[in-house]
């Protein structure tokens, strides 16, 4: 009992430390990715390759003046960012990152807690996320904020439907609501992942889920609530300093959550694309070796002056990481974690890529798209899946 509490506390601490760091650095990654898409260097000044930029941002946000306008509804105005952030962080507690591991003689799962209804929990928490935005919009007592909040609530409610239907289809195949069992059912290789799993590969479902996920997280091309040329800054117009940062971070936390969900539901979670006996456990090491070599090459042929110092250091770090991946004692948990992060990271990269390339929808197009296209398609997909699953059993 006691060891359970201690282990849980440690896990919570680790997960949230990692998660919050990731949130901060995700912003940096995004700026870098978009910069490179647009052929510019991106953040570059603070630290090597702008690596310390997030720290600078946090310091900036913390030290800014925290304004509370006089005309707002104060309790709700204060509650809104808190709600948004809480709901964004809450779902991470049921996400499994890897299989059961043994640490210092204790068996534990790489997951904060496993619920029998994990998928429903995530859905429930994400459906509560609307309140943060809606209340922020309303309590600001500002017409731009109100319109942004209204749009956002309508959009999130509307896109929740195709998303739920898209989630239901792989659940029919896996026949469980527990996220851990979901991954265990997809073990074995890429052909067992729900996105390719018989009797009906869930490719359509996967794509619908991703589209709905973009809308749920208010990302481009669905970032209508904060369409700055129409609504100034949408629901968070009146927010500043850390309260603004809360909304900002909750958006990124939601992105991570939906990417994790997509990985778990469709891409087999931490399962490697092919079994370890065919050498899948050497892939991470190989990738890091390759990355290290590339970094070293560019370090010895620096394009910019300081690269001559920083890139060799990165190269050596990558090579060390590759060596770590080959150590047998950590392989059992590090390799599943690698696959999980790689899949989630791939989806997150997709988020950024799309932000860098696609324009924004018009509002009526956005609503028409979900109700007249996504929803029927998701429904059809669910029907066909259900029919085929019923035929198989």
């Amino acid at each position, binding site marked *: 009992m006691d060891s359970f509490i201690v282990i849980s506390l440690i896990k919570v601490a680790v997960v949230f430390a990692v998660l919050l760091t990731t949130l901060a650095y995700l912003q940096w990654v995004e700026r870098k990715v978009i910069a490179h898409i647009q052929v510019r260097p991106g953040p570059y000044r603070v630290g090597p390759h702008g690596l310390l930029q997030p720290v600078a941002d946090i310091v900036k946000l913390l030290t800014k003046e925290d304004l509370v306008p006089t005309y707002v509804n104060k309790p709700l105005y204060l509650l809104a960012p808190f709600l948004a952030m809480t709901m964004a962080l809450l779902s991470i507690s049921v996400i499994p990152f890897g299989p059961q591991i043994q640490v210092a003689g204790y068996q534990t799962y790489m997951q904060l807690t496993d619920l*029998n209804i994990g998928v429903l929990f995530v859905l*429930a928490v994400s459906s509560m996320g609307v309140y943060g935005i809606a*209340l922020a919009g309303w309590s600001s007592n500002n017409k731009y904020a109100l319109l942004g909040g209204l749009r956002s609530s309508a959009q999130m409610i509307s896109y929740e439907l195709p998303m739920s239907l898209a989630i239901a289809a792989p659940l029919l195949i896996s026949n469980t609501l527990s996220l851990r069992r979901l991954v265990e059912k997809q073990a074995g290789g890429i052909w067992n992942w729900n996105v390719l799993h018989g009797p009906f590969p869930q490719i359509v479902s996967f794509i619908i889920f991703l589209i709905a996920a973009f809308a749920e997280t208010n990302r481009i091309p669905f970032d209508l609530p904060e369409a700055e040329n129409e609504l100034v800054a949408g629901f968070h117009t009146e927010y500043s300093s850390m309260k603004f940062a809360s909304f900002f971070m909750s958006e990124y936390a939601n992105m991570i959550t939906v990417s994790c969900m997509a990985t778990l539901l469709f891409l087999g979670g931490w399962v490697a694309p092919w079994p370890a006996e065919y050498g899948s456990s050497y892939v991470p090491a190989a990738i890091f070796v390759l990355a290290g070599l590339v970094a070293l090459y560019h370090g010895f042929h620096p394009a910019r002056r300081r690269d001559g110092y920083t890139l060799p250091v990165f190269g050596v770090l990558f090579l060390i990481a590759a060596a770590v991946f080959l150590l047998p004692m950590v392989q059992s948990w590090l390799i599943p974690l690698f696959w999980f992060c790689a899949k989630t990271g791939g989806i997150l990269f997709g988020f950024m890529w799309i932000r860098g390339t696609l324009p924004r929808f018009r509002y009526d197009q956005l609503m028409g798209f979900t109700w007249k296209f996504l929803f029927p398609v998701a429904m059809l997909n669910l029907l066909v899946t259900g029919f085929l699953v019923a035929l198989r059993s």
Partner: protein
Amino acid sequence: MDVILFLAFAIIAVVCAINVVVQTHPISSAVSLVGVMGSLAVLYLLLGAEFLAAAQVIVYAGAIMVLFVFVIMLLNAGAESKKGRSFTAQLLGLPLWVAFLGLMAYFIQRLYPQSTRVHFGGFKGGGAAEIGHALFTTFLLPFEVTSILILVAILGAIVLARKEMD
């Protein structure tokens, strides 16, 4: 542990429920009601109703109450006006209400012995599989009828909301 959980969330629920009634602004009432629903979801978990707890949050808190908040925002409803002329409610309301609550509480205490206790994990039949099974066997007809009810409600809502356009 169970008692602490129960008391904590029961108190939250009651406080939020009182807040629903006494707040003059509908949006405060709505947020309080979400609080009631959230704490009830935890109590459902305590009673072994996993699926219902999730459904409570998804359907009630996540859909119905969002709709309420949405409508309040749309109408930009302000605080309640004080004028009212229901003398019946003013005269009879409070004594009747007290009598009602008192009688209910009294009979519950009389009818349900203290010996039946609720502890976490005491009922395992509330998972999604069990609910789904019952829903598609014993309760198939009600389930289908409810689906039709929902469809009718959707159409009704659309018709009602559209009416003033012509």
